[in-house]
C-alpha cells in the first residue's frame, strides 16, 4: 500500500489513501486521475459513491460526486464565499474557494472581487493557490 502511494505524483494530497487494491498478483495500485476531486472531497468531507468510487479512507475521487447536493452559486461574484467549491466548465477540474477580497474602495464600478482557489495542481505538481481576478461564473443565487 505504501509502495503504491509512493508512486503517486507529487501534487496528490492526501497521498496514503489514494490507492486501491487490484488483486493478489497486482496488489495495491495508485488511483487513476489527477486527484483534484480527491483533495476537495477530503477538505469538504464528501463521501458519495460505492466502494469502488472512493479512496481507502472513504472519500470520492471523481469530480461529479463532489457536486452532489450542491447548488450553483448565484448572485454574482460578490456572492462567492470562502469554502465554496469551484469547478471548471467541462467538470474536469475542481478546487475550493479559499479567499475572496472585495474590490478596493474607489475601484471602478463592476470591479469583481479577487477570488483565490486552492486545488491539487497536476500542472504545478503541488497544492496550489490560484488568484483568479476575473472568474466567469454567472451569479444567480
Amino acid at each position: 500500500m505504501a509502495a503504491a502511494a509512493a508512486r503517486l505524483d507529487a501534487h496528490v494530497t492526501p497521498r496514503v489513501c489514494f490507492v486501491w487494491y487490484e488483486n493478489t498478483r497486482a496488489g495495491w495500485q495508485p488511483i487513476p486521475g489527477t486527484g483534484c476531486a480527491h483533495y476537495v472531497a477530503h477538505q469538504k468531507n464528501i463521501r458519495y459513491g460505492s466502494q469502488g468510487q472512493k479512496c481507502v479512507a472513504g472519500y470520492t475521487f471523481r469530480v461529479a460526486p463532489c457536486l452532489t447536493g450542491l447548488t450553483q452559486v448565484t448572485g454574482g461574484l460578490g456572492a462567492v464565499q470562502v469554502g465554496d467549491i469551484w469547478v471548471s466548465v467541462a467538470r474536469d477540474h475542481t478546487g475550493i474557494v479559499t479567499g475572496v477580497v472585495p474590490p478596493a474602495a474607489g475601484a471602478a464600478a463592476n470591479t469583481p472581487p479577487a477570488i483565490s482557489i486552492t486545488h491539487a495542481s497536476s500542472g504545478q505538481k503541488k497544492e496550489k493557490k490560484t488568484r483568479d481576478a476575473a472568474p466567469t461564473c454567472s451569479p444567480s443565487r
Partner: protein
Amino acid sequence: MNATGVFKAVAAAALGCALLSCCASTTPPPKSDTAAASAAATNEVVWYLKGAERQAETYDQRREIRRALEDLASLPAAELRRKRYADASMQPGQWSLATLLQKYFVPADLHSIDEQRLYDDAQRPEARTVVRAQIQAIDENRQATP
C-alpha cells in the same frame, strides 16, 4: 484558471474528522470473479474509457490528451507502443499512451490498464467509437456521456 461554476455546500465540512480517518483502513476490498471474467471478455479501450471521467487542469493538458486520443483512434498498435507524450507539467516524451490515460481518466470501474491488450484492442471499431466520443467531449468542453 477561469471559474465557471462555484458551488456552495449544503452541509458543513468536517475537515478534522476527514483527516483523522485518512489512514484508517488497510483491508483490501473483495474483487468479484464476475468482474474479472467480464474484464477478460471486454475490449480494454472500451472498458477503460467508456464512462470514464476526464480530469485535467490546463489547456495544454487537454490538448495533449486530445492528441493521444487521436493517435489511439487512428494509429496501428506497433506505432502506439512507441508513442510518448508530455507529462502533466508539459515535459515532452515522458508518458506512454497507457500512462497518460491513467493520469487523466478515472474509469467507471477501477482497474489497471493491460498495456499489451490496449493497443491491439484499439484497432477494433467499438474502441474507436468510444475514443471518438471522448475526443468530441473535449472539443465540446464537457464530459463524455457513458
